[in-house]
């Protein structure tokens, strides 16, 4: 099933190339079931079915960005608890000629980082989670109103090995190995002895969402991750010990790559200043997804999305109302 679904997704992605008058609309109607439940990051949120997706999301995007096309750098698929998923991450590229989601057009080449998950039933997509890194675009457009990321912020490259488009069938023993390492690593996050360390290459790259920043080396990642965890008391993900509140929608591996997504995932109580926001003591959950690449027995690259605007809204900061 996975192989077939990946091929369907490949054809779908191909329809997001230039010139794109209306061919993407046909592709969307073909790819999604009419009633598909499509979830997109804030401020779009819930979309009901393929027509709504075209009208609310894609048409305004096509209008805002001239020559818009996709260039994904990871595509993988797999089965999670009886459900078939295909996921991808990469970029949209185009010239921003009209305002979009309250962001002013700069009339230049811009990039929009995208991560997508699609669940298939009978060769149709019935459930989707779509992440855009809108803060990354805000920073590129110079309308981001908060402090800059502490780490690197900017364009995020795909896998250094250029082999993230896994359209072929993977060796299941390799996939299992990747999944096991990722699950064990996740179960050891936010432990006092930093038991997640050995699962990572010493010089790993953590490509974080804009606002969080990107980091090279496990020590520099720790310098971000540990304070981040401490801002949210009881920091929990699905794999955390004693977790009873978080349930991910998918966690799969395909060869040397794995992915995990939750809508909602990371949970905790906002007890320290984060993203310039004083503690609110509110209980928050984050829309999060990750892709990992493994070499040998360690993880070397990790691409991450967090719906930062949604997180900020939960702690009483409406990012879209504050754009510069």
């Amino acid at each position: 099933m996975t192989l077939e679904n990946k091929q369907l997704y490949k054809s779908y992605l191909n329809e997001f190339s230039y010139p794109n008058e209306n061919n993407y609309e046909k592709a969307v109607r073909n790819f999604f079931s009419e009633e598909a439940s499509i979830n997109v990051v804030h401020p779009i949120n819930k979309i009901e079915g393929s027509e709504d997706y075209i009208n609310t999301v894609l048409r305004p995007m096509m209008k805002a960005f001239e020559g818009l096309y996709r260039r994904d750098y990871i595509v993988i698929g797999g089965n999670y608890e009886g459900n078939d998923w295909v996921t991808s991450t990469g970029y949209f590229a185009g010239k921003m000629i009209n305002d979009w989601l309250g962001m002013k057009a700069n009339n230049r080449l811009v990039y929009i980082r995208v991560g997508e998950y699609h669940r298939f039933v009978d060769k149709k997509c019935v459930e989707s989670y779509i992440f855009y890194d809108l803060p990354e675009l805000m920073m590129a457009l110079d309308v981001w109103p908060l402090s800059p990321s502490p780490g690197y912020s900017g364009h995020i490259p795909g896998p250094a090995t250029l082999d993230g488009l896994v359209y072929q069938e993977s060796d299941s023993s390799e996939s299992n190995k990747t999944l096991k390492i990722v699950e064990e690593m996740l179960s050891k996050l936010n432990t006092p002895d930093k038991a997640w360390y050995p699962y990572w290459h010493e010089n790993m790259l953590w490509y974080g969402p804009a606002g969080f920043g990107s980091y090279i080396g496990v020590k520099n990642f720790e310098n971000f991750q540990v304070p981040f965890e401490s801002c949210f008391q009881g920091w929990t993900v699905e794999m955390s010990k004693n977790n009873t509140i978080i349930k991910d929608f998918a966690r799969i591996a395909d060869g040397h790559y794995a992915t995990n997504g939750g809508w909602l995932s990371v949970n905790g109580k906002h007890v320290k200043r984060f993203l310039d926001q004083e503690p609110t003591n509110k209980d928050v959950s984050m829309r999060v997804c990750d892709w990992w690449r493994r070499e040998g027995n360690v993880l070397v690259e990790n691409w991450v999305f967090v719906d930062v605007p949604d997180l900020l809204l939960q702690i009483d900061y409406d990012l879209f109302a504050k754009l510069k």
Partner: protein
Amino acid sequence: MNTFDRSLYLRYSDALRHPCDHSHAVFSFFSENADINVVHPFNKLEGVEGYLSNFVRPLQEAFEGLYRRDDIFMSGQFDGQKWISCTGYYVGRFAQDWIGLKATGTLSYLRYGEFHRIEDRKVVESYIFIDIPEFMIAFNQWPLSIGPGLSRGYTGLIHGPASRDGVIVNDCDPAEGQRSYQIVTDMLACLATKNEAWRPYWHENMMWYGPGAFGSFVGVDEFASFQVPFESQFEGWSGGSMNNGLTRHFTRFGERDYACSGGWPSLTGINVKPFLGQGPTKERIFMRVCDWWRRENDLLVENWVFVDVPHLLLQLGYDPLP
């Protein structure tokens, strides 16, 4: 180009994929007396020792966890000589000041583009471009805010090929490489023409990944908004493929759907209008330039470009480096 020559680079590239002392790989790759040229402020380096002591070791000292990642690697022949070329990024944490630039302590990217001529299974002649202005712009250490065109376009990290297939590790049909070479050679002959005769060679939605100081552009119209003003700043604007009697490409070849070229120098002209806020000096300048192109069928869709901009600015009497 036999497979041995390909493996010479692939071994070098593999060794530098993760942090290590680069010198061992450098010794195996270059011949001891190789003629190695690196963009300003490095310029001409004497042999492998010169390259190590002036370029590689200081880079390793400045960047913690330094490694390389290629986006394009290709090989071919030019005038009976064997060449390989590659472009990609150095990655590391900018931990110590480097060539006068202030360390940021953060993850950073330094774009490279390299050409190496091979004789007797070793590199004997090299031209190595790194995009120092792109690096400086990323950390707000570049002193100029304008580009040569109507705008500076996108500035930031530059993608590899959208098709993710730029590292060519197997032999391929020479006819395809020849076709790539010919399209590029024909297109170059049409640059700086009154009727913009270069347009038909490009995909309408092409990407031009310029040097950091110039910016990147999407679509032929946007590219023209850079290219035409740029050409007008240098009278007699002419490149290394044009038999202009002044400059000549050190190599130009195609492989599969990719082509590349480089000249040290390549572009030349008389500076007749202000360029990056400097001049006009009314004097002839020479630019070190290199390019990679990817085509789809008969149209060029992506183009990665380096210009040694600091070297060019120096000729106009302005030193942008600290």
